[in-house]
């Protein structure tokens, strides 16, 4: 027992001490955040600066649609909820960002001339773009926009939204509804907030638990790959440096294997705890931010004790299952190149699982979800994800855990045998037939 502890201690401390671990633990979440946040941040910036500054409305409708559109766009820019985000107020406050679009009323036959003038202006950067409204716009809502900012989704959405609202107001007016009433009708908004219902009652928003489920699946996948390969490298190092023989002259190969799996697993848990702390801190900030937007109220998914226990259980079992397989692969090979190749089948199991995450997320109660959450190679990743989105029947959970437990036992049994023989073997990687003999012999 003391000796197992010695191995665990060595595996843990030698990994935690490395620069690689410190860097990935601290910068991992920063990097992940950057990936997740940066695009949306940039989009928000784009919408923010949208404000339809310096764009021209060429109004050939003769029905006064141009000023109406300009007014609507201006109002939208003013009410832009993103102005309330801390750190973004500076630009929102400046009047430039809500500048009105200049409206040029022209006769239908003069559109072409006005358009070429506007094109020149855009080219000379005097304006960013122009919107052409004509009789077709009034009849069917079709309008054309040309400019430098056509790829900015935020700005285009504002233009489109402004036009839609203006058209609506105009039609309402035509139907005899005017003034404040028309305004009120035009401003109607639709927001569907989703909420999840389980047999225990309501809890959490659907979106949040979807994201939560995906994050969990992805984290589990990453941890298993990262630390499974870490084990593979560790075994390979012991084998190629020949230190293995000294070690197993003092302890049994099984103790060494167990110590390695536990030690590396503890490193993974340490990293996850640090990341979890980061995540809690960040989501607190994120929730505060969302609340200040007055946007869709995001309720955090309510995580039950059962779920936490299941999550931990799946992580431990899933990690052990793959760690044992990776260790066996490491013991079979005598070089890094060989090991990369030999690990392919194990990697395929993981990759196949993660590829199916998306389809399963969209149909978490479907056949594929059920099957994949019971098959032992995919269940450690799929089941926690499915559980966070839907209520999983008890029989399914039991079947999944049972099959995983059996698979873990099998993979440990198998790899302990391969490990025992392979650790002292040198030379050619064994064929399947030879492997079978190793398993039989030890």
């Amino acid at each position, binding site marked *: 027992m003391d000796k197992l502890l010695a191995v665990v201690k060595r595996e843990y401390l*030698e990994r935690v001490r490395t620069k690689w671990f410190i860097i990935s633990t601290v910068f991992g979440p920063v990097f992940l955040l950057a990936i997740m946040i940066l695009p949306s941040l940039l989009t928000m910036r784009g919408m923010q600066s949208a404000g339809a500054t310096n764009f021209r409305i060429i109004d050939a409708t003769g029905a006064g649609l141009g000023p109406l559109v300009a007014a609507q766009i201006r109002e939208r820019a003013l009410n832009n909820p993103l102005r309330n985000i801390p750190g973004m107020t500076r630009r929102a406050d400046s009047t430039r960002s809500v500048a009105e679009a200049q409206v040029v009323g022209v006769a239908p036959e003069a559109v072409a001339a006005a358009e070429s003038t506007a094109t020149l202006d855009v080219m000379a950067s005097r304006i960013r773009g122009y919107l052409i409204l004509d009789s077709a716009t009034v009849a069917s809502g079709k309008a054309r926009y040309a400019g430098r900012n056509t790829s900015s989704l935020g700005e285009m959405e504002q233009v489109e939204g402004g036009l839609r609202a203006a058209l609506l107001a105009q039609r309402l007016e035509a139907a005899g509804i005017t003034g404040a009433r028309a305004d009120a009708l035009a401003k109607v908004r639709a927001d569907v907030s989703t909420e999840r219902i389980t047999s225990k009652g309501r809890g959490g928003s659907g979106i949040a638990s979807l994201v939560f489920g995906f994050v969990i699946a992805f984290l589990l996948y990453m941890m298993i790959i990262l630390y499974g390969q870490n084990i593979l490298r560790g075994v390979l190092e012991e084998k190629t440096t020949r230190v293995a023989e000294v070690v197993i002259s003092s302890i049994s190969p099984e103790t060494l294997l167990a110590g390695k799996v536990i030690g590396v697993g503890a490193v993974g848990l340490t990293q996850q705890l640090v990341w979890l702390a980061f995540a809690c801190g960040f989501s607190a900030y994120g929730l505060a931010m969302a609340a200040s937007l007055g946007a869709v109220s995001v309720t955090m998914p309510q995580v039950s004790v059962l779920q936490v226990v299941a999550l931990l259980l799946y992580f431990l079992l899933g990690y052990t299952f793959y760690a044992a397989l990776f260790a066996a692969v490491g013991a079979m090979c005598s070089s890094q190149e060989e090991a990369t190749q030999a690990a392919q089948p194990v990697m395929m199991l993981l990759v196949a699982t993660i590829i199916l995450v998306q389809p399963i997320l969209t149909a978490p109660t479907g056949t594929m979800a059920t099957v994949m959450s019971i098959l032992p190679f995919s269940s450690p990743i799929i089941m926690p994800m499915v559980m966070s989105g839907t209520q999983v029947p008890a029989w399914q959970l039991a079947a999944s855990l049972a099959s995983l437990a059996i698979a873990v036992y099998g993979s440990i049994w198998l790899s302990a045998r391969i490990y025992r023989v392979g650790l*002292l073997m040198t030379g050619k990687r064994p064929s399947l037939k030879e492997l079978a003999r190793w398993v039989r012999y030890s």
Partner: protein
Amino acid sequence: MSEIALDIRAITKRYADHVAVDGLSLQVPKGTIYGLLGPNGAGKTTTIRITLDIIGPDEGSVAIFGMANTDRGAIDRVGYLPEERGLYRKMQVRRVLRFLAELKGIAAREADRRIDAWMDRLQLRTPEKDWSAAKVDELSRGMQQKVQFIGTLLHDPDLVILDEPFSGLDPINAQALKDVMVELRQRGKTIIFSTHLMDNAERLCDSVCIIARGRKILDGTVAGVRTEHGVQNIALGVSSGRDRVAALLQESGVVERMDDQNRFFELTLRRGADPQALLRSLVTAGVEVQRFELVQPSLHQIFLEKVGATGVEPGVTGNG
């Protein structure tokens, strides 16, 4: 009767295409230096690995100080230096050594004390430089060998097993290793080492065992092996009656080969022949004997003769 440190009882280990160890038995008395000799692929490393319970034998058993070798208490009393040496390259020397000591049940503090003593003794810790804080990677090959050797002895084992300890050592380190081995023996420890270099064995060992093709060819004390198994050569010089000597030697029936070198005869006696009886018969016959020297064969010669007879299995090298 002296106590037995290691008792190997008829162990056999078969692999798919050959038998590595075939019914091998040997006993190592306590407090001796014991040489396990044999050509490459003879089964030395396999025998040692079975002894340490790294691999299990198909048949037979091994006892260390009277305990089965599957008993972890027995293994803790053994220090092992494998032929293929290596350490965790990225680890600090002191941490590696502590780890190896912990695997033998030595607490970190006690281990540290012993590490210091050994590092001093083997000049890995001098006033100028303390290598115990360096990473294994930064050490030269020779220094790594010393560190590994320290790792073998940190738990003060009663039985030390060294597999080809001299391979790859420079003369200075080899001398240091010999010194330590002799000192350990004086402290009552038992040392077993394998080698295919006979002169090392001849100088260091109290007893030897020669194995080939997984079988024991012979074993016993070095002196005993020499007289029992060596071909006995005699250098004979006579001052008178030289003409009668050749006939006398022929008649005696114990001389297998005679080389008349004019002033000397070089005789090879038949196995089991008594040189004293031959001397007596010469003297009785009135030959004036000037020189009658028993030339003892070296282990090397015995090895060549014995193993040469069985042959070295071609192509089988195992791991050593």
